């Protein structure tokens, strides 16, 4: 039945993009010299939130925010965004893919963070999202003084695409 096929394809695409987006963020964490323990220990909460809000189409972006806890305002030192495009493949054939080279390129261009830096993962969602256990509301740290660099689409599935961008201090 065509409806069932559509539901499965959309669900599979959401699961594929959610889990691989989290896996890619973990790659960035490790590749940038940050402690992967924090993301690993919260894996179930993070994956559940991202997958739930992708499936409900409320997820707009997932951000890895890196900050320096020694500064007075826990200032931003770097940031990676996975921005969701629900119409990336308007006539998507259900192909599921991940481009680790795009992630590796962003890691290489950004460089490593000092070991003292910490990080958190922020989901940008549209109003009306379902609540997910373990997540709380917050606001982004200021990106004033940073330049956003768009790398390209890193993950695709069905009609979904997840584009990757990173931030570096302007003038560096």
């Amino acid at each position, binding site marked *: 039945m065509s409806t069932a096929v559509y539901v499965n394809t959309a669900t*599979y695409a959401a699961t594929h993009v959610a*889990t691989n987006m989290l896996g890619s963020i973990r790659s960035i964490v490790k590749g940038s010299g940050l402690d992967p323990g924090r993301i*690993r220990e*919260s894996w179930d909460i993070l994956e559940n939130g991202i997958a739930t809000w992708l499936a409900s189409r409320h997820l707009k972006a997932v951000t890895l925010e890196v900050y320096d806890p020694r500064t007075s305002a826990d200032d931003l030192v770097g940031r990676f965004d996975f921005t969701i495009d629900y119409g990336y493949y308007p006539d998507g054939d259900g192909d*599921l893919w991940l481009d680790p080279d795009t992630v590796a390129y962003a890691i290489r261009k950004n460089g490593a963070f000092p070991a003292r830096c910490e990080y958190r993962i922020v989901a940008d969602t549209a109003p009306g999202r379902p609540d997910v256990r373990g997540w709380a509301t917050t606001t982004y740290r200021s990106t004033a003084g940073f330049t956003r660099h768009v790398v390209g689409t890193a993950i695709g599935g069905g009609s979904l695409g997840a584009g990757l961008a990173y931030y570096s201090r302007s003038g560096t």
Partner: protein
Amino acid sequence: MSVVSRTVAAIPVRTSVATWQAITDLLAPANSAGRGRLEAVTNIAAVLITAEYTRQAPVVVIPTSGPRVRIRTAHGTDAAETQAGEIPLAVRPCAASGWTMSLPCGIDDIEEIRAALDRHPGIEVRDVTDGVTVDEPAEGPATEGWSIDYEEMERP
């Protein structure tokens, strides 16, 4: 020792956490003595499933009695085909305490995962490119177990 193998559908049929929950269901019934140890390593196992190490090499369970169990995960289009053919185990090997387990892991992640498993005695990690050389349980009193000798079954 006899070996029983199973393949469990992973991403995109299930999230990485849901895949480990399906493996946990396969190995230990709810409220059994050994199930809590499986649930306690959910996040660690989910990381390994996401990296597809469990596609390349099996999770190996050595129960206190009965056959060794190897579980792999299927990913991508293979996952959708696998889900319909998932078969429960006749005896769930982690229902009782005393079992041991080996998880496959890539060399880039093995130090991190080994350190994370320090708090989980009896669950070890091995290089995904190594053969399965998991220690057998120490010799103890004979137990009333059974196993399927697949080699015998395949003999003409």
